């Protein structure tokens, strides 16, 4: 405990010097996407400009704030001034930021997104008032983009591992009680009450227990867990430690998508730091509690996100889902009780332990309390990861947070919830929470929201999802293996102008059979894009029966390739 006290004291002093000291500081957002957008070149341009003028500044790496559409971004702070976020930058504007702001009296307000602190200058607006930030309640994302994810001291300086220390001094049943008060539900899409999983695992028979952090995030269109793991890995690791202590686990696994190399590297670094700081290993902080974590890499299969398939993969087997019960809480890794939670769920845990269930419930709805990190993409003006109170209206999210359509083409539909989700009209009024979304035929799922406009054909998109489900099916059960194949064939026929009059009825009937009779979530939800597509966009399906594709995408129809122009522009 003494060592951690000392580390925390040092960390606070260093953090203070960073954000209130006399040196100019540049924080560079270095998530995988920021790097793709050119963050390294921007940082290098700033360094070169400083060197050319014989001056220096401190450069700090961060993850990202989730403002993907504004990348590359940097935060700049001059002594006595607020931290200001700038973006999107290129090499020229980055050099300008050095000459006009860092080394002069100016602040380049035209490049600024907003300032983080209340300090001067007055002519840069607050970041919190930016349209994309105004509606957000940043809890699990509170540190994202502000701290160095590879430096434990940044997390410690901002209250890190205090909740874990508090948990160590709390009887396990009271920790579970606190989660029950909070009403926290699993953030990967199922929405199962977290406290019930914990209690179940805690009370299951077994000498050994495991905690498994599901960091697979296979849903195309969802990238919030990637952002959390890249930008603030200690947040969910702290949640994992608390979970292990509460359920009596001594070994943890993190199953990370192989598509996320940077997140893998940062989590790996964070685990090393925890061992070094005495927060992992034997007799942690002298409490008698021992726990260690093994980081595993997935291998490019969507179904590995399903908990029983993930456990099979950890055990070195083909990742096919197993029938439940038994649930992993009863019989998981090596037959031992295993608590499975995803990154975002675990990141909520330290906040609840530190601040209580009532605090947690202050935002969200009574059935779906708290926030959710939503991933917005597609034809929206503002794209990225935004943490919003649950229960916010979908059209509000699309129009006010996402900024509506990116160009003059109006939005036609939004796809929510990943492949298990569905297509909804862009103007639909429905609260984004676990229960209300289910009534639309779609899902909130893991929080992916993809907006489409008249360039996208709903039938082609349904076919795309069916192809995905077909590719990713494990092949175990007949409805998913064969039924989805037939659905795909009917859709392919429609997109090629070979539809027949009974096709829509066949799609609905067979879709419902597959939905009701498949073994796991993949098969049970695979027909959703078709079922919702026909429910809300029937006329577009019918047009294909009559030989026209209103979006001009499907090979059956003229005009040829309007999409090619759009993609090239």
């Amino acid at each position: 405990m003494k060592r951690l006290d000392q580390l925390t004291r040092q960390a606070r002093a260093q953090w203070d010097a960073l954000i209130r000291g006399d040196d100019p500081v540049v924080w560079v957002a270095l998530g995988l996407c920021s790097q793709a957008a050119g963050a390294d070149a921007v940082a290098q341009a700033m360094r070169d400009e400083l060197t050319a003028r014989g001056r220096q500044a401190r450069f700090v790496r961060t993850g990202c704030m989730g403002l993907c559409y504004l990348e590359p971004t940097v935060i700049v702070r001059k002594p006595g001034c607020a931290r200001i976020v700038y973006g999107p930058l290129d090499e020229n504007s980055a050099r300008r930021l050095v000459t006009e702001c860092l080394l002069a009296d100016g602040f380049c307000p035209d490049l600024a997104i907003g300032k983080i602190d209340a300090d001067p200058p007055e002519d840069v607006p607050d970041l919190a008032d930016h349209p994309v930030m105004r509606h957000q309640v940043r809890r699990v994302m509170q540190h994202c983009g502000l701290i160095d994810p590879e430096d434990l001291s940044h997390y410690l300086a901002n209250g890190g591992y205090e909740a874990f220390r508090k948990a160590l001094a709390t009887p396990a049943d009271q920790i579970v009680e606190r989660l029950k008060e909070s009403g926290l539900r699993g953030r990967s899409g199922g929405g199962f009450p977290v406290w019930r999983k914990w209690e179940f695992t805690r009370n299951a028979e077994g000498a050994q227990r495991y905690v498994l952090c599901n960091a697979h995030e296979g849903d195309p269109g969802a990238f919030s867990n990637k952002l959390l793991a890249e930008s603030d890995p200690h947040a969910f690791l702290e949640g994992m430690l608390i979970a292990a202590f509460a359920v009596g686990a001594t070994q943890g696994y993190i199953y990370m998508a192989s598509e996320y190399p940077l997140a893998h590297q940062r989590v790996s670094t964070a685990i090393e730091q925890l061992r070094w700081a005495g927060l992992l290993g034997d007799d942690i902080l002298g409490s008698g509690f021992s726990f260690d974590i093994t980081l595993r890499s997935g291998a490019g299969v969507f179904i590995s996100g399903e908990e029983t398939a993930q456990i099979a993969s950890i055990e070195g087997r083909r990742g096919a889902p197993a029938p439940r019960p038994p649930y992993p809480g009863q019989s998981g890794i090596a037959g031992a009780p295993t608590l499975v939670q995803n990154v975002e769920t675990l990141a909520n845990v330290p906040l609840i332990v530190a601040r209580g269930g009532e605090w947690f419930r202050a935002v969200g709805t009574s059935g779906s309390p708290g926030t959710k990190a939503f991933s917005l993409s597609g034809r929206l003006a503002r794209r990225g990861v935004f943490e919003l109170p649950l229960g916010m209206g979908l059209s509000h999210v699309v129009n006010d947070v996402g900024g509506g359509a990116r160009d003059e083409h109006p939005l036609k539909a939004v796809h929510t919830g990943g492949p298990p989700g569905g297509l909804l009209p862009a103007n639909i009024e429905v609260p984004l929470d676990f229960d209300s979304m289910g009534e639309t035929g779609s899902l909130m799922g893991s929080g992916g929201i993809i907006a489409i406009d008249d360039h996208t054909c709903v039938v082609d998109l349904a076919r795309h999802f069916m192809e995905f489900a077909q590719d990713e099916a494990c092949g175990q059960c007949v409805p998913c293996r064969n039924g989805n194949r037939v659905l795909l064939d009917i859709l392919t026929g429609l997109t090629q102008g070979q539809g027949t009059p009974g096709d829509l009825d066949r799609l609905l009937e067979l879709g419902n059979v597959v939905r009701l009779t498949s073994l796991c979530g993949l098969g049970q939800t695979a027909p959703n894009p078709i079922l919702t597509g026909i429910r809300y966009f029937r006329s577009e399906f019918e047009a294909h029966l009559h030989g026209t594709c209103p979006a001009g995408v499907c090979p059956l129809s003229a005009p040829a390739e309007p999409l090619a122009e759009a993609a090239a522009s």
Partner: protein
Amino acid sequence: MVTTTDYDQIRASLQSVLSRHERSRNSLIPILHEVQDLFGHVPPAAIAPIAHRLSLSQAEVHGVVSFYSHFRLSAPGRHHITVCAGTACHVEGTPLLMRELRKLLRIEPGQRTADGLFSLSQIGCLGCCAMAPAIMIDGRIYPSVSPARLSAILTEYGFTKDVQTDEAA
């Protein structure tokens, strides 16, 4: 990266990988990851030593390798192109990118160009949805790629249109 089809050489390089892991089935996927990092693919000749080490049948090991799309049984090109087939990328034009790549490289996903320079695959989602459509070449992500830009991007990796056309002809 070790490039060889010689059984003894593969075996020798494998030993260092195998010796780092517990002799338990749990080690199978981590071993396969390391083997693929070492050779660029999982050489079929590596399957027997891995199976032996973990007391599994070769069929079981092969079954796992073929189940997970990340693992390849044949060598990739010198540069590997991964096209994101996620929903956001699909909506923003992945099909057009694929059409252009097929035209330029004359290969299908899972194949390698005749000169061994490029190989191509599609992936469920790279997680760069806000910058769609995205492709990845050797771990580097290119955001918001248009079909018109592809040829210039490939040229960075040694692509020349004439040579490719000649070889394919």
